[in-house]
C-alpha cells in the first residue's frame, strides 16, 4: 500500500514539476513580450538589423550569455542551485527571446520570406537580447503567488541581502544596476533622439544632466521610501553610502551606455567630447533603470 502511495506521490510530484516548468516558460514568454514590445515596434531597431556591424552584433550576443547566466543565478526560472542549472535557464531565456522576437516580427510584417537570411537573423538577434532579459525578469517579477516557491525566494532574498561577506552583496548590487541600466539603454539607445539630444545640448547641459542623474539615483533608492528601498545605516553618516553605492552605480550606468552606443555604431567617427555627451544623455535613463533595478530585483 505504502509503495503505491509513494509512486502516486512521485507521479503527482513530477506532474507538479512539469506544470511549474511550463508556468515558468509562460511567464518567461510574457516577460519577453512585456519588456520586448517597445523595441519590437521601434523602426531604428529593425534598420539596425541590416547595418549593424556583424562583429559587434556577435559581441552583443556573446556578452548576453554570461549576463543571463548570472541573472538566472540571482532570479532565474526556477531557483537554481548549481551552475549548470543557471546555464540551462539562461539558454532557455535566450531561446524564448529569439522565438518571441521572431514570431512578433513576422506578425508585424517586418520580416518577409523574400528577405536575405542575414537580414532576418540580424533583426531577430538584436531583438532577442532585450527580450531574453525580459524573459528572465518575467519569471521573477510576474510570478505572483507561487506559494512555497515564492516564500523560498523571499527568504533567500533577505538572506542574500544581509550576507556574511559584504562584497558578494556589493557585486550583486552593481550587477543588478548594470542590468537595469542595460535594459533602459537598449530601449532608448537605438532611437535617433539620443544623438539628436546630444547635439542640441551645450556642455553645461551635460554637467547638469550628470548631477541630476546622480541625485535621482540616490533619491530613488534611499529617500522616497519605495518598497524594496534601502535604508541608511543608523550608526554612520550618509556620505560613505553615497560614495560606495551611488557613484559606482553611475559609473556602471555610464559604462553600459558607452557599450550600447558603441554596439549600435552611434559613436563612429565622433570626437571625444560628443561621445562623452552622448554617453551622459544615455546615462540619464540608464541611471533611472539602475536605481529601479536595485528596488525591484
Amino acid at each position: 500500500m505504502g509503495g503505491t502511495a509513494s509512486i502516486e506521490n512521485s507521479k503527482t510530484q513530477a506532474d507538479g514539476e512539469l506544470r511549474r516548468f511550463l508556468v515558468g516558460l509562460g511567464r518567461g514568454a510574457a516577460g519577453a513580450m512585456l519588456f520586448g514590445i517597445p523595441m519590437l515596434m521601434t523602426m531604428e531597431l529593425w534598420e539596425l538589423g541590416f547595418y549593424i556591424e556583424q562583429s559587434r552584433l556577435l559581441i552583443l550576443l556573446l556578452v548576453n550569455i554570461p549576463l543571463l547566466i548570472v541573472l538566472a543565478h540571482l532570479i532565474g526560472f526556477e531557483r537554481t542551485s548549481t551552475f549548470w542549472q543557471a546555464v540551462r535557464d539562461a539558454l532557455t531565456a535566450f531561446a524564448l527571446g529569439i522565438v518571441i522576437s521572431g514570431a512578433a516580427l513576422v506578425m508585424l510584417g517586418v520580416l518577409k520570406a523574400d528577405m536575405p537570411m542575414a537580414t532576418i537573423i540580424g533583426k531577430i538577434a538584436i531583438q532577442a537580447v532585450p527580450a531574453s532579459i525580459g524573459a528572465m525578469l518575467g519569471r521573477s517579477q510576474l510570478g505572483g503567488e507561487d506559494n512555497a516557491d515564492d516564500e523560498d525566494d523571499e527568504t533567500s532574498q533577505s538572506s542574500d541581502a544581509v550576507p556574511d561577506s559584504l562584497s558578494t552583496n556589493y557585486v550583486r548590487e552593481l550587477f543588478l544596476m548594470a542590468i537595469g541600466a542595460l535594459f533602459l539603454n537598449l530601449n532608448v539607445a537605438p532611437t535617433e533622439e539620443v544623438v539628436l539630444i546630444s547635439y542640441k545640448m551645450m556642455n553645461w547641459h551635460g554637467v547638469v544632466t550628470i548631477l541630476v542623474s546622480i541625485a535621482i539615483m540616490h533619491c530613488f533608492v534611499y529617500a522616497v521610501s519605495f518598497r524594496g528601498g534601502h535604508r541608511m545605516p543608523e550608526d554612520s553618516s550618509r556620505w560613505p553610502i553615497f560614495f560606495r553605492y551611488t557613484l559606482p552605480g553611475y559609473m556602471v550606468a555610464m559604462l553600459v551606455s558607452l557599450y550600447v552606443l558603441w554596439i549600435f555604431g552611434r559613436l563612429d567617427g565622433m570626437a571625444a567630447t560628443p561621445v562623452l555627451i552622448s554617453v551622459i544623455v544615455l546615462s540619464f535613463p540608464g541611471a533611472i533603470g539602475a536605481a529601479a533595478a536595485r528596488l525591484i530585483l
Partner: protein
Amino acid sequence: MKDTSDIGKVTEKGEAHWIEWVTAIVSTLIVAGVLGWVGWRAVSEEKVPPAFRIEITERMPVEGGYRIRFDVSNSANRTAAAVVVRGEVMDGDAAVEQADVTFDYVPAQSKASGAILFAREPRQDQIRLRTISFTDP
C-alpha cells in the same frame, strides 16, 4: 526609526570591504573627471559655427558610373544637421554633371562619410565637392 515604511527594506551595512572603497574611489575619480572635463569645456570653449572640410577617399568605376567616396569633417565645436554636399564634374568653368548628397548630421569635431555616383569618369582635377547648406540641430 522602525516605522512601517521600513518594511521590506534593506539596511546598508556600515563597514565596507576594501574592494568597495577602491571602487568608490575609482568611481568618484571618473565621475569627477567627466564633470570636470565637460564643465571645463562649458566654461572655456568658444562656440564656433560648423566648418567643413571634404576629403576624397576613393574613386572607383562601378556599374553604370563612377563612384567618389569622401569624408566630410567638421572642425568646429557645433554639430551641423542636414548638411548638403554638392559634387560637380567641371569642364573648364562649367559644371557638366552635378549631384547632391545630404548628411543627417556631421557632429562637432567629427566626420561623416558618403559617396556620390557620377555617370561619367571625371579626371582628377575635374571634381569639385563643396558643402552648400546645413541647419542647426
